[in-house]
């Protein structure tokens, strides 16, 4: 098999464009919204209010217990049949955010629980409310613990955004598919797409190390 380098170069433009205008903004937006949702769900799950805790528990169970592709299809292809039509981009962001929300909620909950109880007590004794202690003492310490598992979630999300190609979002993989269909060079184009995903994830893993080092400045080594 000889490699058609001309095709590699000429397809690089549209595929990278798909990454920059599709994959990356989709992943960033969904991760940001998903984290906010996850924090809310984690706090509900930790709440003493049994109704909140139950809602959070059911939410996490549903999200983790159903395929992401099915969630995506329910929102984009299913909802219109009950009169709710959402265009591809918002559908993708909603589905991915909800998904991240379910997974990251457990990460955040575990990270909050990993902060020693004495930190809450120290906050109490200097006069802080629970909310103040949470924001100023507990979450900053939980953040450090949750960087590695949340990086996992983010890297998975970046790759999962390829599913958005199935609901007509123009992103990295959809661009590769189109060039492949046109040129009939499936192996080449799909491998090219795989390499680009990999490079993006390498960059993210590098970012994770930097962030971990920054947050580790206050612990013994």
């Amino acid at each position, binding site marked *: 098999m000889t490699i058609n380098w001309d095709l590699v170069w000429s397809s690089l433009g549209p595929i990278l464009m798909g990454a920059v205008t599709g994959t990356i903004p989709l992943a960033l937006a969904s991760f940001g919204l998903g984290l906010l949702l996850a924090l809310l769900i984690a706090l509900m799950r930790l709440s003493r209010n049994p109704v909140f805790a139950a809602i959070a528990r059911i939410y996490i169970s549903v999200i983790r217990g159903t395929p992401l592709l099915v969630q995506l299809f329910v929102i984009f292809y299913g909802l219109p049949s009950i009169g709710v039509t959402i265009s591809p981009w918002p559908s993708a962001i909603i589905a991915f955010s909800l998904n991240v929300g379910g997974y990251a909620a457990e990460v955040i909950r575990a990270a909050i629980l990993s902060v020693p109880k004495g930190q809450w007590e120290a906050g109490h*004794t200097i006069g802080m409310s629970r909310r103040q202690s949470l924001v100023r003492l507990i979450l900053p310490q939980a953040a450090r613990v949750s960087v590695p598992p949340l990086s996992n979630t983010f890297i998975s999300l970046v790759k999962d955004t390829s599913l958005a190609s199935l609901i007509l979002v123009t992103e990295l993989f959809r661009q590769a598919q189109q060039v492949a269909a046109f040129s009939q060079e499936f192996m080449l184009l799909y491998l090219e797409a795989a390499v680009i995903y990999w490079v993006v994830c390498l960059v993210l893993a590098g970012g994770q190390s930097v962030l971990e080092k920054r947050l580790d400045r206050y612990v013994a080594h």
Partner: protein
Amino acid sequence: MSPTESSHAESVPRAPALLAVRGLRKAFGHHEVLRSVDIDVRRGEVVALIGPSGSGKTTVLRCLNGLEIPDDGVVDFVGQLAVDFSAPVTKKQLAALRDRSAMVFQHYNLFPHKTVLENVIEGPVQVQKRPKAEAIAEARELLARVGLAAKEKSYPFELSGGQQQRVGIVRALALRPQLLLFDEPTSALDPELVGDVLTVIKELADEGWTMVVVTHELAFARQVADEVIFMDGGVVVERGHPDTVLRDPQEERTRQFVDRLLNPF
């Protein structure tokens, strides 16, 4: 830096009452940890709480600060605030109770993600809303007093246990509480570091700070305390002047406890 006059050594009865605790009860599940405990603390006085582990002495301390909610009893900061736990208490009451005292923990519980200076000013600035510059100036003064002026930019993990505990004490002082609570402040320290911390606490006592100290350091209690309270099984077994309770205890249980601490072998 303290509001009250010093020298509590001989003049015990004359100082006005600061705290009166009556009928304090607390159970964890079926286990009764406190079974009606009364404690009085006068301004400028040092009360040492001693007793075997599980005797309830730490729980008493935690009840005074609202870290535990007693099942029953009254915590009365005389003339200011009396919280009666026989009825449900409000968040406001608890906050008012907590604001009158500050706790020094056995395991320091410093904030690991904040520098020494940030640890100290967190309460004054974030909770008491005092001007930051003023809080920093006061924090530096206090840190200098305990010999940690050079450490203000360090993180807790960079300090020895004794240094961390001195930061813990400064963090409590910076809140300007009426009452300092010490929960076994030297129990987690290596033996050679205990002296530094006890010296700081003794100096604070000499300056007239009012404090309740849970401790196993009998020599320290004898030297510094105005009253020693021996607890066992959730009740006060014996209380009085340190020379009496520690040297010539009237109760058999006190005698056994003191003997065991003085002669462990």
